[in-house]
């Protein structure tokens, strides 16, 4: 196996709020392989955005290590550290908030070029900016290059954000809900463009979303990691996650999502949870954090042991789950039956 381009090794991250400490990420292990499509999915508060920020080096982990090409990023110095920061770029969710309204598109895209010494004159910068705009299909370039963000539509702004992420010739792009603020009819063109980047520019794409159907479309040839309350609960190749989910949380999630097809969605069997309330991060249940809601809860096991992300005996195909009964090779039985 080649070394993954990015790795999270036992990463935890907490935030302080007054006197309480909120554990947002706990003991996350994650490998990001070169040129793969990796999706992080989960509901709000599951830690997917924090994971993305830790990967991109925008947030240091509270404990654990981030490895870039096998090296702990904290030990990287000078030119090596710069190389890491250049190599991993992030696209934010809100194209209305992430672009400076007082700067033109040309300025927005030139700053990182100058900052990283990739161009030296304004003329060079303009030429490179034009190329970037062409890459993200903002053509004719002349119509866009001197505009300000408010003169662009949401979709166009998000293309500028993508172009900005490309300025440093990154090898990894972390796209955090990059299309969720964009209208349905233009979402797919943005996604398709991101997907083409992989082959055109040889980048690895980490896509963060709450929308499993989008994740499925985006990462059909890659992997999905499902997160719940700060931990990865299931990870594996997209087709097996979507078609044969193993972890109880993944099963419940998939069963709950409406489908854009009346017959299909109305025939869907929903998995009833034992509780609808999501625990607070400050009062996490002991053991498996999903156990108070899990329909297949095993008393004496789930609330005792923190499950580790492991393979299920007898299930092939590279899926790993964090569910003690499953990884111990038990059959799931409904609680109380």
């Amino acid at each position, binding site marked *: 196996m080649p070394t993954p381009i990015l790795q999270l090794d036992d990463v935890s991250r907490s935030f302080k709020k007054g006197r309480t400490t909120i554990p947002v990420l706990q003991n996350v292990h994650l490998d990001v392989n070169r040129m793969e499509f990796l999706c992080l999915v989960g*509901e*709000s508060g599951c830690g997917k955005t924090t994971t993305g920020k830790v990967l991109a080096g925008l947030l240091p982990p509270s404990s654990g290590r981030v490895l870039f090409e096998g090296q702990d990023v904290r030990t990287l110095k000078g030119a090596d550290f710069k190389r890491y920061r250049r190599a991993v770029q992030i696209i934010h969710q809100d194209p209305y908030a992430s672009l400076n309204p007082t700067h033109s598109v040309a300025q927005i895209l030139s700053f990182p070029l100058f900052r990283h010494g990739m161009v030296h004159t304004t003329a060079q910068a303009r030429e490179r900016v034009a190329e970037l705009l062409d890459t993200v299909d903002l053509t004719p370039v002349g119509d866009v290059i001197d505009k300000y963000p408010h003169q662009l*539509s*949401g*979709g*166009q702004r998000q293309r500028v954000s993508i172009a900005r992420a490309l300025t440093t010739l990154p090898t990894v792009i972390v796209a955090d809900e990059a299309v969720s603020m964009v*209208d*349905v*009819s*233009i*979402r*797919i*063109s*943005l996604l*398709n463009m991101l997907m083409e980047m992989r082959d055109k520019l040889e980048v690895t794409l980490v896509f963060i979303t*709450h929308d*499993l*159907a*989008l994740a*499925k*479309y985006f990462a*059909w040839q890659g992997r999905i990691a499902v997160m719940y309350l700060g931990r990865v609960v299931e990870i594996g190749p997209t*087709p097996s996650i*979507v*078609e044969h989910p193993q972890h109880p949380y993944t099963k*419940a*999630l*998939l069963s*709950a*999502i*409406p*489908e*854009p*097809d*009346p*017959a*299909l*969605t*109305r025939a869907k069997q*929903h998995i009833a*949870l034992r509780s*609808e*309330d*999501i625990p607070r991060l400050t009062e996490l249940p002991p053991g498996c954090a999903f156990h108070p809601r899990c329909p297949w809860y095993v008393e004496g096991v789930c609330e005792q042991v923190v499950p580790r992300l492991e393979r299920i005996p007898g299930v092939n195909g590279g899926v790993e789950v964090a569910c003690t009964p499953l990884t111990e090779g038990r059959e799931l039985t409904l609680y109380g039956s």
Partner: protein
Amino acid sequence: MNNNTIVLQVENVSVTYRSRRGPVQAVKHVSFDLRKGESLALIGESGSGKTTLSLALIRMLADNARITSGKILYTRDGVTRNVLELSDGDLRTLRWRDCAMVFQGAQNAFNPVLRIRDQFMDTARAHGLNDREWVRRRTLDLFQLVRLDAQRVYDAYPHELSGGMRQRALLALGVLLDPQIVILDEPTTALDILTQRAIIDVLNQIQERLNFSIIFISHDLALAAEMADRVATMYAGEVVEIGAVEDIFYRPLHPYTLGLLRSVPKLSHGQDELISIPGNPPDLINPPPGCKFHPRCQFASDHCRKETPPFEQHAPGHSAACWHMDRVIAVHAELQQSR
């Protein structure tokens, strides 16, 4: 559950906003009707006029908006009234009693310093119901119906409840006065998937029990597929297609509806082949001539660029505004076969 009593008739309604750049035609010549117990979904993208239209239905539009044409007729117990002709007093009774509206992101609609029970009492009193005991019993009943821990929620402050619980409490508040119509603006956006599922189930249940009609506004096609009896697609302020939910999803007539369907991924059934609709929604101050969708439409011809297509019935209960419906039908059939 449905019978054929029509509770709301919208005829040729247009709404214009004043703006510095000139008048904005946010809703144009919209007509539809709503039957008792029915769920109608208004789907469309941002700026398609769906929220403006729903605000017009209860005359809650902003000061710079004007309803320039049309009639909005509510019928209850055999009496029909045009909302556009009601006095302010009559309008106040109509709102919430006949037609309640639950706004987008309404989890945050409760007043944070008042207990939930006081907000229910206030709403009832504002509409002339002073029997506190009746309101208490009705509220607790409704809480049970929306699967809330009734007494606890009744005495709670909003911050003590989760987003999903507040959303359910709000649904209960919406139906407190037994309205005939409830308008829901993006009822599940900003909610988590599992919470969203719970809200959908609760909505279906209370609708079955109380038999009110729902108009819900959404950009989420999957939600429409799940909850709606009928669907209206809006584009650039116009309803471009309306029909039974199966008609819209399985037999679309308008290129925009087809385009939307082709751009949404499904969870099941393997890999999707999706295509975006090219271009951007039009500027409503200077809309394109003819059919407003023509600059983005794969079927557009000279006819489309010159003349606005009429809104025509194609099959019973299924209408659309397009010069090239036959070609849309043919292309859709081909797509279905190639699957």
